[in-house]
Structures are given as C-alpha cells and as structure tokens.
C-alpha cells in the first residue's frame, strides 16, 4: 500500500511538470533583457518557463519563490562565490532542471547549501550538477518533493566544515531517485523525514556515512549503492524501515559498517548485498527486524549483534567468505538465526532434505577473544587458534550456547 | 711434495694425531702401518682435507692447503670403506666423477675398471653391489684421473685374490711412473714388492719412519712383516716421532 502511494506520487509529480509547457516563456542570458537568473525569476509569472542560456552566472542567494519551470540550457553555471546559499526555493510545484550549481558559502555557524528548499511542496529538482557546495541540497519543512538524477559531488575533507549531499530535515513524502553523490560528509541525511522513498541512488566516497538517518519513520530504501564511505551507513532511532536490494560495499575501518542499525524496530532488510565491509551489519538495540535473503560476502564480520537486540529474525541469507560470521558482546541471544547458508558449516545432511542435520554455531571462540583483546587478531588462522576454535565448536563453553542455526542450508540459496 | 708440519688432532678427549711431522716425495711408495685406531686413516683424511686438524700445517707442493681445494685434483683417493650415493648406478657415479674432475688435458683412464670387469655391471645401483665390487669401483675411481698422488686406504681388503693382484700390478706401474703412493694395510705380505718406506704409527705418533732397505738392513730380515715384528720388539713404545727421523 505504502509503495503504491509512493509510486502514485512520482507519477503525479512527472505529469504535473508537463503543465508548465503551455505557459509563457522567459529567457535569461547575455543577449536577453534578463541578464541574471534572479531577474528572470522576478520577471516571470506563475506557471512560466524560464530558460537560462549557457554561461556563468555569478549570483548568490537567488530567491526562487514562484511556481516556475526553471530550465538551464547546456548546464549554465551558477557560482555562489562561496557566500550564502546559492539558491533558495520557497514555492509550490517549482521545477529546477539542467543547472550546475557551485561554490556555496562555508561557515561554522550556518549551514549553507547549493540549493535550499524551504516550506515547499511538490518541487522537482532534476538533472542538475552540484559541485563544491557545503550542503548540496538542503530541504526543510517540505513535502512531496522529488530530487532526481542529479550529480552531487564535493571535496569534503573534514566533518565540521563540510555538509551533506542531500540533507532533508522535517520533511515528508520525499522522493530521492537516481542521484549520484560523493565527497560530502554524509551522502544522504534524513532527520525527521517520513514516508519517503530513496531509490537507485549511488552514494560513495563520503567522509562519514553514505546514508545517515534518525527519527525518520516509514521510509523505504531500494536498489541504492553505498560504497567506500568512510563509516558506511548508519541509521538510528527509527521505526518501520524497509531496505531492499541495496548494495553496501567496501566500507573499511574500525568504525565502518556496511550498515549500523541502532534502535531500529519493525522493518525488513532483504535482498541486500554486503561485500568486503569490515562489519557488514551491526545491530544494536533493534527489535522485530526481518533480515532475510541478503548476501554477506567476504566481510570481516558479517553480523555483529549486541545483547540488547531482541526478536529479530535472520533467515535465508547467504554467508560466504566472511572472516567471522557472527559476533556478539553478550551471552544470551534472543534472536533467531535459523535457516541460513553458512559456507563454514561442516555438518552433514543424511536425510537429503538440503538442510544440515546438526546445528551450526556461527560464533567462533576466537571472535569472542578478539572482542576482549583486539591485538590477538594477529594470531588468527594460526594452528593454535584453529585448534581452540575446533574444540569450542565441539564443546561450547565461552560462546553463547543458544546462538545457532538449527537447520542450516547445505548449499547457497539462489539470491 | 706433501709435507706435514706438527699436525695435531683430537676427537673429543682422544688425541688422534699428536704433532706429526713428515715429508712425502714423488716416486716414494709409503706403507703406513699400525694397529687399529692408531690414526692412520685420520692422517690420510687430514691430507685430503676431510678432517680439519686442530693445529699444524699441510703443504702440497710447498703451498699450504688449509681451505684450499684445487690441490685435490692431483690426488686419487681410495677409501677404506667406499660409501657412495645408494641410488646411483656405477655409470652414473663415474660420469659424475668425470664431471667433477673434468680437465681438458687428461683423458680419463678406465683400464682398471675394465680389467675388474665393471663394464658389464655399469647399470647396477651402488646399494646392490657387494663390498668387493664397491672396492673395485673405489679403486677404479682413484686411478681414473691419472693423479700425481695415490692415497689407498686398505686397498685390498675385501678384494678377491685375482683382483687384488691386478690392483697391485697397477700400483707398481704407477710407482714406476714416479708417483707418490701412500698405502695403509694390515696385510704386510702384500706390500713387500711395493714399498720404499715404512711408517709405523701408534696412538697418534710415528713410532718409526724408515726406508724399506734400511729397515731390512737393520733387522736382517727379507720379509717386511718379520722386519716390522722384529723392530717393534726392540723399540720402546711411545717415543716422539721426531727423534726417529732418519738423519
């Protein structure tokens, strides 16, 4: 139902945009009376289309406050000259398309953006390029806006002075589609954003998180790629999150996660691919999540799960080539791990039902030792450690006895 | 040609060689006699560089041989018990020795091997050979590269009488060519026709070192064995060897 609503929203947004074609046309450029974009906007009427010709427009704090279709031809550059917000949209049903917006202000006091969207409804921002902005797109108190197919890049090098690629605050029904984001603090940041869809975006090489949200209920994330972000993805304090078919790759570091789930409840995480992360999935204080049909391939830790995590169901996932499959900091684990494929499983299947006859214990003794003494990771894969692990698997003493997969699959699931 | 100066060697606490001084010249054929464990083999091995002496010098053609190895190409050595790589065939072994001692000027001489009939068993592996046959191989190898010095440690032990005789003939032939020959043996009767000088060792010392003619003259015996027996009866054992050098 929710997904249907979101799709309808997209259709409405796209159809709505074609209405403006019937309206008047205003031109901006060196050969036209309107030399600046601000002049073009000021001289246009609601419903007009404003064409901006190719060129460099050294303007900042552009007030975009009418229902206009503002279209750049051959990507005119709007250079904010490193002061303030380059453009501010405060309108209903406005469309911004085909611009290259660069050099927003940078300040420790204010959050300056390439494009600020405030108190707006039904705004569409598509096919633009953002470079070198502190925040590239910042929305506040807006509803039903679409941010689509934008190239959003910056060169962030510290977390204080630089902002996020797409930053939404207290917004609702946002559609973030097909954007390519890199070089920001966080690629996509949501705070108090509800009923929104994040779909087919690529967020990579950001200096903190590829995706970061908190207090953002009822959002759905589909087919995004989050990779090589310095801390991966972190999501917190949120209910009803659904994540399908996303890729979380190559997030390396002591505090880097494919995805860190903290206080997340009631959601589905399915069809995702976790490859070569230090920790693919870190679950802290989460409840009633359904984690199924994901692939965990070649990670350091596939899943780290804290003792405060309850009633999660982890099933039908493939665990292949991970250094450690599961690690935990507690002894009592109240989550279900039944019915996954684990490549480290050494059991047998006498009745040939495709499921192992003895349980698999995904926690190795040595991963527990490393938790308490990280330097001992250096002895990993030595003979003495293999012996310790083998002994522990036969006679569990230190690792949680009840953390086990009772019916592991014998062969990888086709995912 | 070979000179030993004050050579001493201990194995553990056992003094095997005790300040040996001597000179061997070309054309000499020296019999090295003495009871078991008197240091004969050790002395030979020090000359060959197989045993490293604790002190003293060995000169070959006037040059010290310590850490040298080139001089060994002038020496043919037949060990007391020839020990060879077990998996090698005779042909293989000979081929390897030819490889090692390859010298453009000298064509290998395998007359001895032929006369021992080794040619028919060239493809036998060394471990399958009898002690006697192994000795034949050792002998053939010692003579093969026409060395200037022949060191033969118990050459006839284990050989059948016919082969023994063949070897003896060959030794005489080499001696007549003016080569230096050093033989140890227990069977003194064999040495009668060969030897020019006799050295008798005991407990790491030379008890005496005399030309055969002189020995016979002193003792008035024709047979080496009797002469040695006689002189041993009259000698006090344990005198330092240097006092017995012929003047």
């Amino acid at each position, binding site marked *: 139902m929710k997904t249907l609503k979101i799709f309808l929203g997209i259709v409405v947004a796209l159809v709505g945009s074609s209405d403006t074609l019937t309206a008047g046309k205003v031109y901006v450029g060196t050969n036209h009376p309107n030399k600046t974009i601000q002049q073009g906007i000021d001289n246009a009427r609601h419903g007009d289309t404003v064409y901006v010709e190719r060129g460099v427009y050294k303007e900042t704090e552009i007030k975009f406050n009418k229902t206009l279709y503002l279209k750049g031809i051959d990507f005119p550059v709007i250079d904010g000259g490193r002061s303030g917000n380059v453009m501010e949209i405060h309108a209903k049903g406005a469309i911004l398309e085909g611009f290259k917006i660069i050099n927003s202000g940078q300040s420790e006091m204010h959050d300056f953006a390439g494009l600020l969207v405030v108190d707006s409804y039904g705004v569409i921002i598509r096919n633009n390029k953002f470079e070198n902005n502190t925040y590239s797109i910042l929305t506040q108190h807006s509803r039903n806006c679409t941010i689509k197919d934008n190239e959003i890049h910056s060169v962030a090098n510290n977390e204080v002075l630089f902002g996020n690629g797409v930053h939404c605050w207290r917004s609702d029904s946002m559609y973030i589609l097909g954007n390519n984001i890199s070089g920001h603090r966080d690629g996509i940041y949501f705070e108090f954003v509800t009923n929104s869809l994040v779909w087919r975006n690529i967020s990579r090489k950001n200096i903190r998180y590829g995706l970061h949200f908190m207090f953002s209920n009822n959002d759905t994330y589909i087919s995004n790629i989050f990779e090589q972000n310095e801390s991966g993805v972190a999501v917190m304090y949120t209910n009803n999150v659904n994540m399908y078919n996303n890729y979380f790759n190559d997030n*390396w570091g002591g505090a880097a996660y494919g995805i860190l789930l903290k206080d997340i409840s009631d959601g589905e995480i399915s069809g995702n691919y976790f490859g070569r992360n230090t920790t693919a999935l870190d679950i802290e204080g989460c409840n009633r999540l359904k984690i199924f049909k994901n692939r965990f391939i*070649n*990670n350091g830790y596939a899943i780290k799960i804290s003792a405060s995590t309850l009633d999660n169901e982890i099933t039908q996932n493939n665990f292949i080539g991970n250094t450690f499959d599961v690690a935990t900091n507690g002894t009592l684990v109240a989550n279900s791990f039944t019915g996954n494929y684990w*490549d480290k499983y050494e059991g047998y299947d006498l009745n040939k039902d495709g499921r192992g006859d003895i349980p698999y214990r995904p926690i190795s003794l040595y991963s527990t030792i490393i938790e308490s003494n990280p330097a001992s990771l250096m002895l990993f894969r030595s*003979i003495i450690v293999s012996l310790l692990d083998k002994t522990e698997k036969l006679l569990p003493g230190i690792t949680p006895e009840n953390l086990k997969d009772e019916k592991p699959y014998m062969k*990888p699931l086709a995912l | 040609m070979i000179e030993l100066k004050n050579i001493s060697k201990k194995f553990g606490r056992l003094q095997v060689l005790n300040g040996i001084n001597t000179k061997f010249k070309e054309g000499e054929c020296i019999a090295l006699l003495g009871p078991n464990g008197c240091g004969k083999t050790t002395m030979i091995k020090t000359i060959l560089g197989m045993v490293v002496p604790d002190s003293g010098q060995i000169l070959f053609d006037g040059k010290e041989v310590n850490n040298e190895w080139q001089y060994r190409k002038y020496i043919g050595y037949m060990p007391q018990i020839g020990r060879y790589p077990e998996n090698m065939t005779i042909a293989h072994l000979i081929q*390897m020795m030819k490889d090692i001692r390859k010298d453009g000027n000298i064509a290998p001489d395998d007359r001895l091997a032929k006369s021992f009939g080794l040619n028919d068993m060239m493809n036998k592996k060394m471990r399958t050979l009898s002690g006697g046959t192994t000795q034949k191989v050792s002998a053939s190898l010692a003579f093969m590269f026409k060395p200037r010095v022949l060191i033969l440690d118990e050459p006839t032990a284990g050989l059948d009488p016919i082969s023994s005789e063949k070897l003896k003939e060959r030794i005489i032939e080499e001696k007549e060519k003016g080569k230096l020959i050093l033989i140890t043996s227990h069977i003194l009767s064999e040495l009668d026709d060969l030897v020019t000088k006799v050295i008798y060792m005991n407990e790491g010392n030379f008890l005496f070192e005399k030309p055969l003619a002189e020995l016979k003259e002193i003792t008035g015996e024709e047979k080496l064995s009797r002469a040695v027996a006689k002189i041993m009866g009259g000698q006090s054992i344990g005198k330092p060897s240097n006092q017995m050098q012929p003047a």
Partner: protein
Amino acid sequence: MKKILKYVIVDIIQNKIVLIYTALLLLISLSVFNIESSAAKGMASLLNLILLVVPLVCIIFSTIYIYNSTEFTELLVSQPLKRKTIWLSLFGGLATSLSLAFLIGVGIPVLLYHADATGLVMILSGLFLTVVFVSIAFLAVGWTRDKAKGIGWAIALWLFFALIFDAIVLFLLFQFQDYPLENAMVIMSFINPIDLSRVQILLQMDISALMGYTGAVFREFFGSSMGIIISFLGLSVWIAVPLLFSLRSFKRKDM
C-alpha cells in the same frame, strides 16, 4: 656448483617420498577446491596445509636426506671441490626440488582456481616457507651426528614454530593486555617464519576484518608495500641465517 646441483636434484626427484609429497599436495589441493563449497573456503583449508604440512615435510625430509647423503658428501669432500660448493649444492637441490613439488602440488591448483593476489601471496609464502624449513633442517643437522637425534631436533623445531611459539604469544597477549603490544607483535612475527607468512596471507584473506582492528601500527606496517617487502626480506633472512650457520659448522666438520 651447477654440476653437483644437477646430480642432487636428479637424485631427489627420483626419490619416492618427494613424488608422494607432490602427489599428496596435488590431491589435497584439488579436492579442497572441488569439495569445498567456495573457493574462499578452499583457500582457508589450504592455508593450514601451507602453515602445517609444508614446513613439517620440508624439515623432516631435508633432515633425513642430509643424513642419508653422508656418503655422498664424504665422497665429494675428498674431491677437488670447495666444501661451500658441496653444501650449497645440497641445499640448492633440496630447496629446488621441494619448491618444485610445492609449485606443482599447490601452485598449479591455486592458479587454476584462485588466481588473484591472495593466491599469489599464498604461493609465494609457501615457497618461502619451503626454503626456510630446508634451511632450518641444515642447521638442525649441524647440531648432532646422530640421525635419530637430528630428526628429533627437526620435529621439535617444527613444533616450536608451528604451535608452541603462537601459544606463547597468545599467553603473553593476555598477560600484558593492558599494555600497548602492537610494536611487540610486529617484532614477534619476525621471530617466527610461519607467523610472518601467515600474516602476509591474512592481510590478503581477511583484510576487511583487519581494517577494523583499532591499532593501526600492525596494519600500516604489514599492509604497506614497504611492509610486504620487509616481510619477505625477513623470510629471506630466515633462509640465509640458518644456512650460513650450518655452512660454518660444515666447513669445520670432520668426515
């Protein structure tokens, strides 16, 4: 040098044990890759083979072979050859033929099934371990003339490097876990050639996990190309030093 080496290699290659060793390695490697569900898991199994079986076979076979070659060395020492030449030929022959056995038995399957950086580092480490343990065998042989004692020493050395050393390190890690141990750990791994190889392979296989390791020294040292070069230099020292010591004692040895 070359001519003796040729004879040693021919002799060893004809040796049944080396043929069996090659076949065994090949059999294990191929079955590991075919039976295990993923190539990555196969590599993990192969790692044990390389860290455990290869050093064991190399040190024991070499020890026995050197003792059994007493006749051969005796024969050669009386010939116009340098002792150094004889000893190095023996070493070269053992190192070459056992490396060849490893290349055929493990190298080819790894290249067939897992020809990436991990595979290459694995092959390289295995080769180095082969030669290192041949070299250590030469050292052990120098300690005693008694073959049985020599083999005893060889097994003891293997046990030390394969198991006891790591147990001691693990013990120390827990005894001193309140202290920064990273630099000490780097030095410790240079004391044991098996650890040095294992860390190199670890850095390839478990890089994701190692990147989570909070202490940066180890990662930065071994992970950098300089660290890799120094590690393999360390392994080269492990080849050279035991060999040189054994050569020194062989030069003074009485046949």
